[in-house]
């Protein structure tokens, strides 16, 4: 059984300037011990999904569809149950570790808070457990009484990871957990995350714009564009043999050192990500797509089967896609 499954998830922010459809029909499935990587540019809706899974969105935001966490529908949960599930059912490691910790409280107390609030442990036991958690993320337990300012950026991110693991959740959502970190520290934090995920058999949703990080950590990869998943499948298949032109462009943006094709040829994608209030007609990617043809501005592509291992891509160029969508290629 999957730890998390989301069906036809739609999220619409309501602003003074009108409704902003940030997520427009997304299906996700994460099994135990599996890491799903969610990639895309800023504004594509990937962080909105993270917040929607634990219902952390601003009041008034319209969320429809179904989110099932450990067999329970998150969108139907009432106040107390929801609070209980947050952190014990699923926890989040946020991007800005620097700002996510309370500067005037010792880190040990901050981690213990999650344990005592959720009645996982009483105060005395909590301290022992916090020591273990710190050790798990590679921090010496004697740092338990440190304040956040005594730690470096990478150490703070380790504290955040320890906190996320405190109540042994079945799902950890990591939203850009290494983006603000230095190269070497990023590598350290990633290897801690990978190790813990493997040892504890965690299910993980790993969100980042950096496809090269996902190639390292994730089993499955889903690429988002303009609020929808445009391609998914096993990570290596998707990265090395992308089917969707957008994934191709993203993958090409990460040069392989030593590969002469990249020397002197930085590759990227022209144009800007679409405004969620003015999503282009048809395939939303068509204005930036090098392969667009006359059907692209009118036909909205679904996720079509695109190869072995359950790969799918939302592009009319995928074999059989055009017929499935009822269009004719001239």
């Amino acid at each position, binding site marked *: 059984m999957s730890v998390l499954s989301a069906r036809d998830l739609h999220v619409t922010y309501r602003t003074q300037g009108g409704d902003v459809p940030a997520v427009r029909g997304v299906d996700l499935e994460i099994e135990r011990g599996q890491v799903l990587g969610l990639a895309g540019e800023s504004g594509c809706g990937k962080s909105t999904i993270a917040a929607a899974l634990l219902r952390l969105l601003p009041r008034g935001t319209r969320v429809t569809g179904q989110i099932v966490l450990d067999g329970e529908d998150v969108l139907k949960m009432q106040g107390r149950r929801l609070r209980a599930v947050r952190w014990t059912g699923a926890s989040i490691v946020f991007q800005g570790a620097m700002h996510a910790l309370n500067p005037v409280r010792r880190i040990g107390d901050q981690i213990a808070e999650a344990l005592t609030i959720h009645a996982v442990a009483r105060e005395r036991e909590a301290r022992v457990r916090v020591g273990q958690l710190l050790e798990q993320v590679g921090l010496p337990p004697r740092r338990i009484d440190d304040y956040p300012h005594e730690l470096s950026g990478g150490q703070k991110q380790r504290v955040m990871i320890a906190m996320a693991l405190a109540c042994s959740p079945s799902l950890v959502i990591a939203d850009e957990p290494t983006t603000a970190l230095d*190269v070497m520290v990023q590598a350290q934090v990633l*290897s801690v995350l990978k190790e813990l995920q493997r040892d504890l058999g965690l299910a993980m949703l790993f969100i980042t714009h950096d496809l090269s990080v996902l190639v390292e950590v994730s089993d499955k990869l889903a690429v988002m564009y303009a609020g929808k998943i445009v391609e998914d499948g096993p990570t290596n298949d998707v990265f090395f043999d992308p089917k969707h032109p957008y994934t191709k462009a993203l993958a090409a*943006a990460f040069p392989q050192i030593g590969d002469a094709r990249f020397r002197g040829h930085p590759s990227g994608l022209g144009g800007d990500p679409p405004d969620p209030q003015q999503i282009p007609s048809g395939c939303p990617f068509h204005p930036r797509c090098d392969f667009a043809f006359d059907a692209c501005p009118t036909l909205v592509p679904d996720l079509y089967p695109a190869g072995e291992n359950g790969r799918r891509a939302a592009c009319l160029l995928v074999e059989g896609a055009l017929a499935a969508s009822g269009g004719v290629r001239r």
Partner: protein
Amino acid sequence: MSDVDVQPSERQPGSDQVPVLEVRDLEVNFAGRLGLLSGLIGRKSRDARAVDGVDLTLRRGEVLALAGESGCGKTTTARAIMGLIQPDAGQILFEGKRLGRDLRSYRRRVQMVFQDPTGSLNPRQTIYEIVAEGLRIHNVSTGEPGHTEEELVSRALSRAGMRPPERFFLLYPHELSGGQRQRVVIAGALALDPEVIVADEPVSNLDASVRGEILRLLLQLRDTLQISILIVTHDLGLAWTVADRVAVMYLGRIVEIGPAEQVLTRPMHPYTRALLDVVPEAGGVDRPVLAGEPPDPTNIPPGCRFHPRCPALASGESARAAVDGACRTEDLGLDELRPQHFAACHLASVVASEGDRAPATTDRA
């Protein structure tokens, strides 16, 4: 100023001409702060030696990448070159001449592009005003046809890829995307027809998909206007795509410098190797990751400054080459171990002298 409109020019990388920019033995210290109590009991503050003897040359029409972890002094070096920080020692030479007190004409010819385009643009100025500001400060516009302010602004914008430029004149920074904002920053630099652009992490705040476009623009400026570019980055993949030469900094010093192909595919310094190891790579194999935090510039270790974290020393490789003593006690400078390829490493020196002086492989596609 000559009219250098888009015209391909022949580049002669590595030729013997006078480098555009030269840095000699640059040192920058930041005074350590001391608490009141520690001051009263007479404790001495420890200065941070952010840049500790850097030599660097930038050749005409070259793209040089300065790479390293945070805190290695790469940004401080760039800022000192720009005259934004007063160095404690050392010289900066522009076209062979030492920088004097008057930085005005120098600042016009050497322009800087910062990391965060949103932070470096005044939100209350229009794009036109932003690009024109440098022109006004330096009295560039003569008012003659072809040199009116408006013409210069629109030329700079279109060179930076903002076309048609007039469409952007009256917009404000918040109306642009991140990539466009960085183009405006670059246009502001280009307006003054600089010979050198110092770009400090010019794309690290941008989305991966947009980065390529900005890098392509920088390369294009090099090719068409022969602008020399010093690009400060932590991203070796970026260095691989754009740089002719790469310099790797560690704790205030350059520890390896040479042609990009050489440094990035046949690195000699263990630190460069460690940096290359952490570049995320497909496959997700467990790679060696240097333990420990970025080093502390207030407390520089004796001997080779990398030795406390050096994997070659830890694995006994240095001991087998009988340099482990030297690693711990003898400080060393850069040595040309392969043609044009310098490194500061006791072990690499031994390895190189043992016959690894193989001819450099410079075949590129």
